[in-house]
């Protein structure tokens, strides 16, 4: 087997490793769904994938292209509704078991996300889709994985719009605002894996991928990040790559061209 891997492949596997048995995985589409599927097939067989639209533990014989894709409605444990799905996350009993996978256009050093716009809110240079369920899940659940391309314009000092709350301005400001602890807890990029200091709420480098360095990561980040604890990531194992390629996305619909 080809043990070289694409950035998408290592990102998917790094995210999948965050998911534990028993976790309820709030999933979007694309790479986030693939990570959820990979976790289920590799390391967390009893994790449960669910969607903000209300489908719980769908079979997913084909990869959905949207969280309202009819493919998520088949063989689910239950098909409910938006209000039910978000209640599952706001509810502490089930919500504390949820890990969410999110994407964003911008992230700051406290793990706050922007999926709304670039530039002025009223006359933006680029308008994105908006919150969707992102703000909700980042408000409610203890753990979120943020998938990002590691670029300086995306890892910014100041968000153009704070769509989904992370640690806000750090140092307990999230809890002071009335939110429960949680929000983005890990950031998975094409260069490495970042986490957040439990006291200051600031992002630090946890792992850099083989072939990258802490320096490369700092170069692609506007803000300062502690890299003193960083270690090189364990590269994807043969088993991980095999299951991802053969069992999760054999047509490479989401993974795209092989490396």
């Amino acid at each position, binding site marked *: 087997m080809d043990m070289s891997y694409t950035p998408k492949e290592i990102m998917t596997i790094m995210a999948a490793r965050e998911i534990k048995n028993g976790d309820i995985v709030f999933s979007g589409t694309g790479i986030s769904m693939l990570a959820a599927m990979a976790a289920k097939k590799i390391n967390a067989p009893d994790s449960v994938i669910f969607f903000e*639209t209300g489908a719980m533990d769908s079979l997913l014989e084909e990869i959905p292209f*949207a969280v*309202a894709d*009819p493919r*998520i409605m088949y063989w689910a444990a239950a098909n409910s509704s*938006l209000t039910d799905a978000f209640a599952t996350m706001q509810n502490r009993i089930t919500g504390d078991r949820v890990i969410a996978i999110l994407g964003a256009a911008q992230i700051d050093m406290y793990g706050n996300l922007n999926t709304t716009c670039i530039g002025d809110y009223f006359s933006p240079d680029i*308008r994105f889709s908006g919150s*969707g369920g992102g*703000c909700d899940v980042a408000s409610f659940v203890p753990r979120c994985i943020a998938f990002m391309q590691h670029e300086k314009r995306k890892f910014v000092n100041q968000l153009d719009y704070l769509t989904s709350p992370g640690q806000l301005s750090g140092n307990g400001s999230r809890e002071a605002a*009335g939110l429960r602890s949680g929000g983005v807890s890990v950031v998975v990029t094409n260069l490495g894996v970042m986490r957040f200091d439990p006291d200051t709420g600031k992002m630090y480098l946890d792992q850099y991928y083989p072939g990258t360095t802490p320096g490369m990561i700092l170069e692609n980040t506007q803000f300062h990040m502690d890299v003193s604890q960083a270690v090189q990531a364990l590269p994807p194992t043969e088993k991980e790559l095999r299951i991802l390629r053969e069992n999760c996305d054999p047509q490479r619909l989401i993974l795209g061209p092989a490396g």
Partner: protein
Amino acid sequence: MDNDTDKTMPLQEAVSRYVKKGAHISIGGFTLNRNPMAAVYEIIRQKITDLHLYAHSNGTGLDELIGAGCISKLEIAYGGNGKAAPTCIRFAKAIQNNDILFEDYSNYMMSLRFMAGAMGVPFLPTLSGLGSDIVSTWGFPESLRRSDPKIVDRKLAVVDNPFGNWGGAKKVVAVPAITPDVTIIHVQKADAMGTCSIKGLAFADVEQVKASRHVIVTCENLVEKAELRKNPDMNQIPFIHVTAVCHVPFGGYPTAVYGHYDYDSQYLKKFAAAAKDKDAFKAYQDAWVYGVNSHEQFLQQVGKESLAAIAADPETGYSVNMKRD
């Protein structure tokens, strides 16, 4: 009045009767699923303008309406359409060009706002959004909020929990109720009185319907009352909430209707491509919306082959192994 009243009427009539210029409306479905597209196209053809649209994530229908210039004010959680168009392009352009007034919420907030309307309470509480710009940044001009009695004075309100820290929350975000003038949904089955059975996810359709003064239902199958009465547990909407019933097969096309047909990726790609440019989009709507005089004619133009290609597999409810790239 209501019980055994036959509420069926042609879609053209339902739209012209209940969707007036300036109306506050909402549509059912989510991104590329069960949008009431026949009704959306009819609204566009009837050139109804100045609409105030309440949306959570009604991707396809939303973008067609905005692109056609029907919408002047928008309250929304998400303008996107899945893989075909991660951000609804006409929506994005309309905001970038200052063509519409808009207000951002989250999906849960918008769903709760419909639910508050359905429940008849002025607001519902959530913990979502505390500390975010969704709470602190308001899109509608204050003058609009003050002058228009149909628009609530405040986007939302952060209020103290009257029970101290009960439930682990010292404060909550109160989101105000929505009561649209009219909501339009597309369902698999309805009877002539308006009782509806939705197969697969209901999204927020039920809350949207119950919050609304008028409700137009378009349906794949117009069935006998008895067929729905046999399974009352599967009928999410009893007739008392419904104003008009329109029998429109493929009324959700090009979005998916579970158990009937899938979304048409090819159509959605064509649509998303045209949306990138104002003139191309006008040409697209000229050909596919204004160029036909009914949904039936639109479907003829789409062609039987395209419809056959997205026919749902009876077991899974979607089109298995359909070409989707």
